[in-house]
């Protein structure tokens, strides 16, 4: 009877990532029109590079948010900072230690993710509180380790993070590989199915025999590992770890998930949308800059976009 209608409504959640890209395109076009094309390749390159950082942490946050209401990882900025600080200090500018340094960064992520999950499990507290209190610890650890020093990354690593291959920044290639891998995990692996099931209905997932606790643990670890990788790359890219380097990524990581069209109610995730959201966030900034509008207008616009998107998304659900 109402099959076509119902199914098209159910397809709607798949579309929002498309709009994030459309909006990015329009924003780019607007900037392009104003600058009459000058510097547009630099703009694309910068957008791709900076969007990479938001996209990687955004993917991690997306995994967590997919588990449903109340699941948010607030420790992403602190984990980024800690991983960046520790690995750069360890490498101390030595090219030979690039890979061990990466190992250190990823290990930080693994440990942080496990710690987050154990807090949730053992103290039986909501993920928000657990990741919040843990982030205080990570932040402090990073401050203590860093001691205000700014250690330069190994030259080769700095070159890699700022270089590009066939016009595409190396970092973007890394970011895209991660996105493809995440997409594959979500769409094709059993973990992706389980994650979506937990997010849609945790109780039903448990009653279907899904190892809910294992899925939760893996998700928080995954989010922290992606955050630590971003910390490592960002610190290398910007010539050293800074203690506040992660700060803005807390809100951005949640924002790109929402703009990208993932359902905050859980169970529904999409990787392309994260990239769309990340690109949009950067392009809006540069567009407003080139129109001579400051950070204030940009922030207000970002906030308005986020609220408009959730309000619209809930309206769609209401009509279904």
């Amino acid at each position, binding site marked *: 009877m109402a099959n076509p209608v119902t199914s098209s409504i159910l397809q709607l959640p798949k579309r929002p990532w498309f709009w994030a890209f459309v909006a990015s395109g329009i924003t780019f076009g607007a900037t392009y029109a104003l600058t009459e094309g000058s510097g547009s390749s630099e703009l694309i390159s910068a957008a791709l590079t900076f969007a990479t950082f938001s996209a990687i942490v955004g993917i991690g946050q997306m995994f967590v948010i997919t588990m449903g*209401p*109340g699941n*948010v990882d*607030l420790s992403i900025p602190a984990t980024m900072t800690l991983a960046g600080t520790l690995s750069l200090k360890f490498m101390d500018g030595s090219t030979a230690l690039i890979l061990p340094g990466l190992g250190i960064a990823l290990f930080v992520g693994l440990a942080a993710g496990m710690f987050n999950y154990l*807090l949730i499990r053992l*103290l*039986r*507290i*909501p993920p*928000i*509180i657990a990741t*919040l*209190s*843990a*982030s*205080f*610890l990570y*932040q*402090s*650890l990073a*401050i*203590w380790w860093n*001691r205000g020093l700014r250690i330069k990354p190994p030259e080769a690593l700095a070159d890699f993070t700022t270089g590009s291959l066939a016009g595409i920044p190396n970092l973007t290639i890394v970011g895209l590989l991660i996105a493809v891998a995440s997409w594959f995990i979500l769409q094709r692996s059993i973990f992706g199915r389980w994650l979506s099931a937990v997010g849609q209905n945790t109780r039903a997932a448990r009653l279907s025999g899904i190892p809910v606790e294992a899925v939760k643990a893996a998700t928080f670890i995954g989010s922290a590992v992606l955050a630590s990788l971003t910390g490592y790359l960002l610190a290398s890219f910007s010539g050293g770890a800074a203690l506040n380097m992660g*700060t803005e990524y807390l*809100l951005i990581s*949640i*924002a790109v998930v*929402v703009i990208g069209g993932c359902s*905050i*109610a859980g169970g529904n995730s999409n990787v392309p949308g994260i990239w769309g959201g990340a690109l949009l966030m950067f392009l809006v900034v540069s567009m407003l800059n080139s129109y001579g509008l*400051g*950070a*204030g*207008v*940009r*922030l*207000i*616009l*970002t*906030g*308005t*976009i*986020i*609220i408009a998107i*959730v*309000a619209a998304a*809930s*309206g769609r659900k*209401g009509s279904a």
Partner: protein
Amino acid sequence: MIGKYRILLPVLSLAVLLAAVFYLQPRAMSYFGLNLLFNLAVPIALATIAQMMIIMVNDIDLSIGTFVSFVACVTATFVNETPLLGAAILLASIMVYAAMGALIHARQLPAIVVTLGMSFVWAGLAVLLLPSPGGASPGWIRTLMTVKPPFVPMAVVACVLIAGFTHILIMRSATGTLLRAVGGNTQAVVRAGWSVIKLKAGAYALAGFFGVLSGMCLVGLTTSADANIALRYTLLSIAGVILGGGEFVGGKVSPVGAVIGALTLSLAGSFLSFMRLSPDWQIGAQGAILILVLAVRLIFARNGSRWKEAKNG
């Protein structure tokens, strides 16, 4: 009986921390010392109270830090120069909070995302007002914040006043009770014929009101403002509510506890400096205290339920 002693744990944590500080640095046990210890706690306590209003109705506010920053910017500019316009702006911002609560309830939106969006908006407005640090505190706020009452320093007096006032408002008054009932059992409130959307808007408006107070106090203490002045308050206020015995769902909050939680968090920093430990660990100590208190609370809760089981046979 367990619920009644919810307040004990925060009081205990503060007392232990305070005793440790006094032990390490007996000079802190003076009028001047106490004022120094707790000075910056007043705006944090107010922001924590604001966060508590939202948590009370089972939501969370990720925008309180940027909102307080925004208020600080308004206070340091408009309230200082054109008080009437400044007051109107602050009043309007409280209305925005109420509208946000109504919107969240009416459309059943996730509060975490809406307040996240609002945090960008407040931050943007603050940057527009004060692109670089500046402005000046209105004289009367400065006077109020630096007044030296006899015997007890202003910071302590202010905290006691805040705790007392919000306790009466939330825990004792008929309206406050109804607001807590929304968090405890929304269905019962609906069934008795109350308008939950009005109640939620009210709770959010109260949060806005205390956010405004927090921003004004902050400017009174710092004498100038900038757009990032209170960003840390978002996380601190959540931590303060939880530390003060509040819970995320079910309307279980305690205003006195929240103020004590805020005091504990701001004392943690001073404690470290008296320990001659690097201030690097200040944030870490706040996190550690939070985890510790939550762990102790879990043990209490377990024993409590065992005790209850034993009682009920």
